[in-house]
């Protein structure tokens, strides 16, 4: 068999990227960012608050963490529900006792179903990030433009009915289409976090900001995918914080500068009784280092934007 000759054509082989969504730059060549209080490291805790309908949808794909057994999968339905009833409260308590404000990427269905949770998030000074409708609201490049537009629009409208206007959007599984950045702008979103290519925010050509929510450092990746212990998770995040803070500290004259440590937290994963203690100890260690500025995503973007001049 011979390959089609077109396979050796490279129409987008040129300086820069092979797409027109955003521009390339190396982090070390950018204007150094300084976070409030002169701290070298912005730490962004981002909790995922998710509602998994008992009947899962595979269009366009089934969300990570969704139902797995034959119907009715009470095992996973209730184990995920544990996140909204128990796990997230442990996380919110851990933050509030330490004076930390975070982001909560919330399915709008969670806000509608559990007003007490929405109220606690808002009154605690935390930030709500739109996270689609529910865990059946997945998006990818196979979805039609109309269907994708409908999901983003419906999410926006349902938040509006609750009197909340999230500025940021986090797609389920960080999955987007080529259209998504423009659709997010059209529906009034200022930023997203799904494009995991950097340790600082950056801007799409259409003006949308991306605050990279590192997937490798997520609790799902470290605890569920690699099956590490909670202590190993804490060690890995601690090592990341030390490195990033050191890199930022060494910035004078080298082009390095303030850095971002993004922590995606899933209440039914990190919020379990045998794991939460290691996470709380990690927070205490990060606080004691004196290197960390904890903030919601929007506040980090505001500081970064101001430093762009």
């Amino acid at each position: 068999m011979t390959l089609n000759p077109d396979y050796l054509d490279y129409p987008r082989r040129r300086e820069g990227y092979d797409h027109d969504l955003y521009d390339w730059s190396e982090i070390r060549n950018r204007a150094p960012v300084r976070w409030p209080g002169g701290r070298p490291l912005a730490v962004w805790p981002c909790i995922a608050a998710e509602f998994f309908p008992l009947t899962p949808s595979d269009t366009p794909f089934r969300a990570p963490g969704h139902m797995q057994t034959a119907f009715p999968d009470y095992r996973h339905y209730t184990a995920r529900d544990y996140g909204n009833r128990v796990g997230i409260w442990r996380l919110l308590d851990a933050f509030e006792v330490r004076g930390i404000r975070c982001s909560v990427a919330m399915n709008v269905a969670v806000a509608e179903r559990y007003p007490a949770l929405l109220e606690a998030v808002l009154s605690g000074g935390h930030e709500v990030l739109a996270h689609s409708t529910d865990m059946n609201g997945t998006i990818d490049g196979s979805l039609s433009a109309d269907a994708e537009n409908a999901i983003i629009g419906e999410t926006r409208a349902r938040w509006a009915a609750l009197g909340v206007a999230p500025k940021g959007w986090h797609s389920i599984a960080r999955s987007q289409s080529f259209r998504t950045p423009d659709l997010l702008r059209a529906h009034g979103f200022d930023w997203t976090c799904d494009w995991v290519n950097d340790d600082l925010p950056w801007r799409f050509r259409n003006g949308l900001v991306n605050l990279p929510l590192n997937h490798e450092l997520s609790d799902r990746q470290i605890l569920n995918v690699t099956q590490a212990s909670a202590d190993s998770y804490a060690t890995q995040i601690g090592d990341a914080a030390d490195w990033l803070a050191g890199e930022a500290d060494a910035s004078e004259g080298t082009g390095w500068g303030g850095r971002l440590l993004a922590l995606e937290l899933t209440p039914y994963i990190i919020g379990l009784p045998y794991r939460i203690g290691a996470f709380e100890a990690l927070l205490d260690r990060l606080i004691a280092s004196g290197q960390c500025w904890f903030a919601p995503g929007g506040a980090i973007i505001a500081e970064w934007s101001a430093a762009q001049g």
Partner: protein
Amino acid sequence: MDDPHLYDFAPWRGRPKLVWPGGRTCAVWVAPNLEFYEIDPPTHPRRKSWARPHPDVVGYTHRDYANRVGHTRMADVMSEFGFPGSVSLSVALCQHHPAIVADAAARGWEFFSHGIYNTRYAYDMDPDQERAIIRDSIATVEAATGQRIRGWLAPALTHTVNTLDLIAEAGMDYTCDLYHSDQPTLAKTKHGAITAIPYSLEVNDHYGFFIYNMSPREYADTLIRQYERLASEGEQSGTVMCIPLHSYLIGQPHRIGPFREVLRHIANDGRAWVAKAGEIVDAYRAQVPA
């Protein structure tokens, strides 16, 4: 086909003695993969580029992290302890991000080809098609760096049965695609023997983190164990350890610190000959001409 007849069998026990410069027992080379993955590549009939419909946002931007953040972080740690890179290069990186290629060249690193893109696969190419990507690789790297490449690591490890013959025909003298030994060996081609230099799947950071699900510290411990054993066995006959890297993996902030300690350990041990791939090939062929 049962046996592609790539090389002759030779048992580990009773091998001829290889010696490395300065009496070092283990030749250590670091092979950073400097890659470009296309966001919307054409479909190959035998292999999908991305798990998700295009754009695979996480897949693409994870690799993109290398060229925005990871490369310099990894390269600075290598330079700190005197480890040059022997670069497995997606040669289209010379067009897309010439500054990354220039940085590697300025550090004195060696380049070999890893195909045009890591999203273009060689399976099913006829010899003229494969000759075209070999010629493209040689010309592209020469234009960007002045270096004439000597080696090949098949794009995304995709081969044809002609690959070794064709790279030898083009004047290359080493391959990184054969995993049968912890020493260099001769690989047979229609155009004479070339050197198969040990690369590694097993201690490749991709395997460590995504096949074996190691934590960063477990991976660092794995590399040190690999080194200690090879440096010890190398007293009988010199061994080779390759550390194949991808800076979107090893350059992540939770991994680079433990990895730095590995380089410190090897650099300070005294038994390592830290070298580039071409230097190891030359030292081997001086002892085993054909």
